[in-house]
């Protein structure tokens, strides 16, 4: 990045897409300190790699590539087993109705399931959750669109199976 103006413009774009960073940090790290460290590292690497941004790709595609690469490369080793659920504890949710409680439980199960996925499958799942097109997912991950479709179907089917087993 040649000058301060360009850096500030890039920061603005990162800011507009900061949801990507939250999602990746929350998916790959399970404690507050690790999340903050990863967020810093991602932003640092994004700014450092700014010169390589190719305008033929969408900004979000480029940002996903960098953020996922950083998350997988630097935080695979730091992975802690402790999983902090999004949902509050049962005692904190007395005001919830039955439907909300069921939804929160399902979210926790889903979070556990995604947490157990392998690194690359997890990356695929994050992109799928974002409703990215198969073409964009294939560009970010470097696999074919057919491969993306097959893998997503497989993950969804095992998710459905998991929920059916629980509900039985």
């Amino acid at each position: 990045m040649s000058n301060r103006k360009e850096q500030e413009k890039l920061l603005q774009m990162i800011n507009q897409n900061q949801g990507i960073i939250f999602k990746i940090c929350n998916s790959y790290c399970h404690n507050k300190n690790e999340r903050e460290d990863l967020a810093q590292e991602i932003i640092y690497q994004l700014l450092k790699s700014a010169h390589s941004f190719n305008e033929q790709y969408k900004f979000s595609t480029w940002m996903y590539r960098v953020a996922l690469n950083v998350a997988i490369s630097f935080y695979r080793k730091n992975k802690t087993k402790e999983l902090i659920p999004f949902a509050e504890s049962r005692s904190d949710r007395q005001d919830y109705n039955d439907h909300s409680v069921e939804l929160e439980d399902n979210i926790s199960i889903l979070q556990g399931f995604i947490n157990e996925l392998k690194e690359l499958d997890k990356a695929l799942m994050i992109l799928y959750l974002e409703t990215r097109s198969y073409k964009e997912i294939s560009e970010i991950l470097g696999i074919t669109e057919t491969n993306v479709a097959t893998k997503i179907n497989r993950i969804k089917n095992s998710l459905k199976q998991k929920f059916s087993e629980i509900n039985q």
Partner: protein
Amino acid sequence: MDETELQDLLKTYNQKLEEAKVLNLQSWVLNLQCFEALQKQKSKSKLRSLMNFKIVAVILGILWFLFLGYLLFYSMEIQKIFFLVSVAAIIVFTFIAIVIYMHQIIMIHKINNTESVLEAQEKLAQLKLSTLNITRFLFLQAPFYCTFWWSFNFIENSPKSFWFISFPIALIFTFASIWLFKSISIKNIHKKWFKILFNSTEWTSLIKANNFFEEINSFKRNI
């Protein structure tokens, strides 16, 4: 659970993921000075520390190379032929190791986070595994550390010591180094002698790199 229910659940989960914000990110992103401050800090990245390790190894290798070169230069006598041949062989191994380490440093420089996830991660895993090759290669120089002090005088004056102690030791080292060169490979990573030979940290990171490399391959193959 049907498709619609699953889609709704995934949508809610996606929102939750985004809502669980990383503290201070807002101010962090908006503040360019933070980036500049971070640039001055020592990066925590594993790649940076791997590169630093390799740079130190290259510097030490060059110093060792120069020291051996100096010894070789001032020992050019036919009576010191064993010493000269041994030191020359070690110099060759050191030189090759320096070149390979330099190549690995270049590889680390070329690893680019903006490449597709699979490309970048494959290069990283390969880099890790390539350290195995240099290690097995360096074992081949071991016999020369047993021969540098031999001399014709020693062979003539103490033939028993030479033929029954020194020579067999050199022979054992030769066979052992060739065996290690052939056997140190990823396919033997789970064997006991491998775990004993490599310390636990190296072994763990090799296992992880290998497992991840396999994961990348199966991810690519659509299986």
